[in-house]
Structure formats: C-alpha cells, structure tokens
C-alpha cells in the first residue's frame, strides 16, 4: 500500500518533468530562443533594464528572479528534510564519535578566533558587492555559514549553549524565502507583477534597495541553513 503510494507520487512528479524536458530545444540548437534573442537582449539591455552592474546578478534577481526563488526554497527544503530524517539529540553510532566530547586543539581554536573577523568581513563584502562583481548572496552566505560552522566548534557547546538560540535560528533559516516573499509582494503592489521591480526613472534607489534586501536575505538565510545542516548532522 505504502510502496504503491510512493510509486504513484514519484510518477506524478516525474511524468510532467519528463514531458517538460522532452519539450526543450535540442542542446546547441541555433534556432533556440536563448541563441536567437534572449541572451542578446540580456547583454544589450541588461544593465539598463535591471540596474545591476553585474549581468549575472541582473539575470539571477531580475529576469529569472522566480527561478532563484525556487532555488532558495530547495535549500530550505534540504534543511527541513535533514531535520526530519535525523533523530534529534542523537550522537551517532557507538564508537563513531566525530563530535562526541573530543576537545578541540588549542591551535585550531586560536586560528579560528584569529581569522573569524576577516572571514566575516569577506563574507559581507561578497554579499554586498554581488551587484557589481562576481559573488552575491549565495556565495557570501556560504562563506558566512562556513564561519559559523567553525565558530560553533570553538564557542557553541552542545544543546545548552548553541551559537544562535533555536528560536531565532528558525527565523534566520527562513530568511531567504521570507525576503523573496516580501520583495515579491512589494513588486506586486508597485508594478502588478510578482517580483517586479519599478523601472521608471527616479525609482532606481528603491529598485537597488529591493535587490540588496534580497541579497542580504539569501546570504543570511544560506549561512543559517548551512550552520543548521552542520549542527543537525553533528547531532545537536
């Protein structure tokens, strides 16, 4: 019964996807939309239309903002799946003990404390500079997440004293979808389209702020989710 239910669910998800894939143009097909006008439009009009100096950011947050919304939902779902699958407070199998009470080396602890502020500054730089240079919320968020992982080795001590209190951690982990939701609704109110950005002259600052808000949301949410994955896998 249960197996057939799983099979039906998988089939219901797979069939539309396969139909969609079958409808895609052949790879390298010169008559595909992306080769005829889409890419050319992005390159020619992107800077003007999106207000982002970095074309990748322009595509990610403006032209394909809805795709990016899906991406952050996938990352959020990954954390939810890990939390659902792994038992809470479990310390792993006997004798495995990756995190079970082995004291951290003083050299490692010192290096982590020494480098932490620089890594934090670099992560914030990558998030805020994502507009004009390679980088952005995803990359900066991972840098911040890696920093939080390192710090939780030195500072966080188990369930009693977590690095971020559990309640705030839940909100931070949802920061990226929430930021997209907020900007999406704001865009709906301003332009009549979800994730629409005001394009008329004089509103550039607002558009800029919406995009920076999204970048910060993606960065904070990504970092918190990576820390959450780390702590859940470690069994805390």
């Amino acid at each position, binding site marked *: 019964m249960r197996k057939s239910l799983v099979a039906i669910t998988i089939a219901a998800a797979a069939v539309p996807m396969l139909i969609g894939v079958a409808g895609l143009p052949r790879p390298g097909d010169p008559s595909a939309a992306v080769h005829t006008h889409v890419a050319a439009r992005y390159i020619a009009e992107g800077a003007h239309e999106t207000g982002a100096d970095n074309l*990748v950011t322009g595509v990610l947050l403006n032209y394909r903002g809805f795709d990016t919304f899906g991406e952050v939902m996938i990352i959020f779902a990954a954390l939810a799946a890990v939390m659902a699958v792994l038992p809470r407070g*479990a310390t*792993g*199998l006997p004798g*495995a*003990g*990756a*995190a079970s009470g082995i004291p951290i080396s003083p050299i490692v602890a010192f290096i982590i404390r020494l480098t932490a502020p620089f890594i934090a500054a670099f992560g914030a730089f*990558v998030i805020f500079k994502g507009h004009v240079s*390679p*980088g*952005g919320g*995803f*990359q900066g968020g*991972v*840098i911040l*997440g*890696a920093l939080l*992982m390192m710090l939780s080795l030195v500072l966080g001590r188990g369930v009693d004293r977590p690095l971020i209190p559990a309640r705030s951690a839940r909100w931070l982990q949802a920061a990226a979808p929430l930021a997209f939701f907020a900007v999406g609704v704001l865009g709906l109110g301003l332009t009549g389209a979800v994730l629409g950005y005001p394009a008329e002259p004089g509103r550039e600052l607002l558009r800029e702020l919406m995009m920076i808000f999204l970048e910060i949301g993606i960065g904070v949410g990504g970092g918190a989710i*990576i820390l959450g*994955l*780390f702590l859940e*896998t*470690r*069994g805390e």
Partner: protein
Amino acid sequence: MNQVFDLVMLALLIAMALAVARSKDLVAAAMIFSGYGLVMCLLWQHRGAPDVAMTEAAIGAGVTTILVLLAIGRTCRREK
C-alpha cells in the same frame, strides 16, 4: 595553451572521480572529492565563470566535505 590547461584539468577530474568511486576508505574518498571540487573551481574560473567558481570553492571544496565527514562520523568509516 588554453586547451592544454582544460585538458589537464579534465583528466585530473576523471582520475579523481574514479578514485572516489574505487576507494573503500570513505574518509579518503571525501578528501579526494574535496580536491575534485577545487579542480572544478579552477576549471570554472578558467572558463570565465567566476560566480560559479566561488560557489564551487565554498560549497564543493569546503562545506560539502565537512558535511560528508560528519555523516561518515555518524556511520562507519570503511565501505563493506
């Protein structure tokens, strides 16, 4: 010259992927996979995709390795 760099990197990638698949020691496999991420990052950068290269360096070579090591820590080091 450009082609040579790409070909060397791609050969390295294939060798590392085979090593990961063949290794019975999962910790060794995780470390090789981290190196795979690093080579992939160099390749992205060389192909002119610095955004993807940054993501690959941070996630592929960094965070994934730690998560895999933690998962190994909760299970068993050697493949049976």
